[in-house]
């Protein structure tokens, strides 16, 4: 290897060293140039759906989403496993039972959008008399380094299991009492009507006299 070749090789090494140094120094932690504040407001904070009949698809509620930040933001709507549960409630067995009319919504600053929430619990006896909690997540995905999201608590209670023989008897007795009450009211109405009619007839006879 002659002097020139060694010189070129050393020069290449120097270039490589400089390149590596520049590369190492060039680790930038760059953030998107969005300034100001970011914010979201969603209502209601929590809603409860009681007496749900398995097999029926229902509209469980409507979420109002407001962009309170300074920049337009796109929000994704999804179902989220709760980080904590309300007392007496457990995890919803299948998140796919909850659905939305839209799963992505872009809202300019200061404006609102709406998302309908649907629920359909499969028609199985094992899903009767249950109390479940699931969270609905509305989270910003485009809008800057810091984004915001909310978790709306959705509390679901399904119908009670079919009544036992004893409770059927109690229901019958209770219904009988209602029927007797209704018949009594009808009888009372008829009695009052008859009394009024009779009184009017009496008045008419007196006038003829």
């Amino acid at each position: 290897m002659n002097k020139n070749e060694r010189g070129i090789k050393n020069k290449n090494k120097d270039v490589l060293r400089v390149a590596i140094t520049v590369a190492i120094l060039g680790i930038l932690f760059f953030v998107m140039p969005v300034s100001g504040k970011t914010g979201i407001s969603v209502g209601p904070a929590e809603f409860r759906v009681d007496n749900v009949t398995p097999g029926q698809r229902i509209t469980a509620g409507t979420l109002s989403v407001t962009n309170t930040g300074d920049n337009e933001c796109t929000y994704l709507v999804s179902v989220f496993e709760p980080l904590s549960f309300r007392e007496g409630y457990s995890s919803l067995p299948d998140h796919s039972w909850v659905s939305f009319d839209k799963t992505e919504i872009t809202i300019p600053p200061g404006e609102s959008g709406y998302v309908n929430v649907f629920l359909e619990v499969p028609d199985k006896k094992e899903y009767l008399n249950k109390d479940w909690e699931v969270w609905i997540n509305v989270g910003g995905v485009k809008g800057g380094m810091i984004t915001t999201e909310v978790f709306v608590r959705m509390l679901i209670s399904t119908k009670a299991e079919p009544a036992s023989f004893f409770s059927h008897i109690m229901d019958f007795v209770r219904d009988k009492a209602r029927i007797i009450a209704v018949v009594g009211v009808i009888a009372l109405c008829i009695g009052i009507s008859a009394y009024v009619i009779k009184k009017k007839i009496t008045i008419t006879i007196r006038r003829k006299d």
Partner: protein
Amino acid sequence: MDDRTSILAPLVALMIATAFVTPVMTQENATINVTVTISQLGVEVSPATYDFGLMNLNDVASTSADYFSVTNTGNVPSNMTMKATNTSNWRLSPSPGADAFTLEYRLDTTWTPLTTSPAIFAANIGPGENETFALQMKTPTSTTSYGQQSTTITIGVVAA
């Protein structure tokens, strides 16, 4: 007039009776109750961005204390959550490693690493109240990807 009265009276009685009977008959069909508490969840964070600037490998940089402010803009006491994302080349990790960076927050004195799943960092914050926090970035110990990286930090809110 009397004839009309005699016809109307039973009809009125029947209508009244129907009004009583109908709820009894339809009670079995009243299936779903949706209860909505008139409440609003809200959160605001300011500022919405921070640039850690130029950093070396295995380096640490942080914002000033109380740089970020998060406010409960809703009308119910709320818990605040925080999470971060991986960058396009580095994964978020509790401690720095090869192509692994760490992002930590601090409310008072302790730095807590962020994960990609939301975790409650401030509990039971009243309406209108705010919390301040700082962020700290630790770069990977080694990397195959030089150049700018970005992550997204998400602040969440849920009714306490």
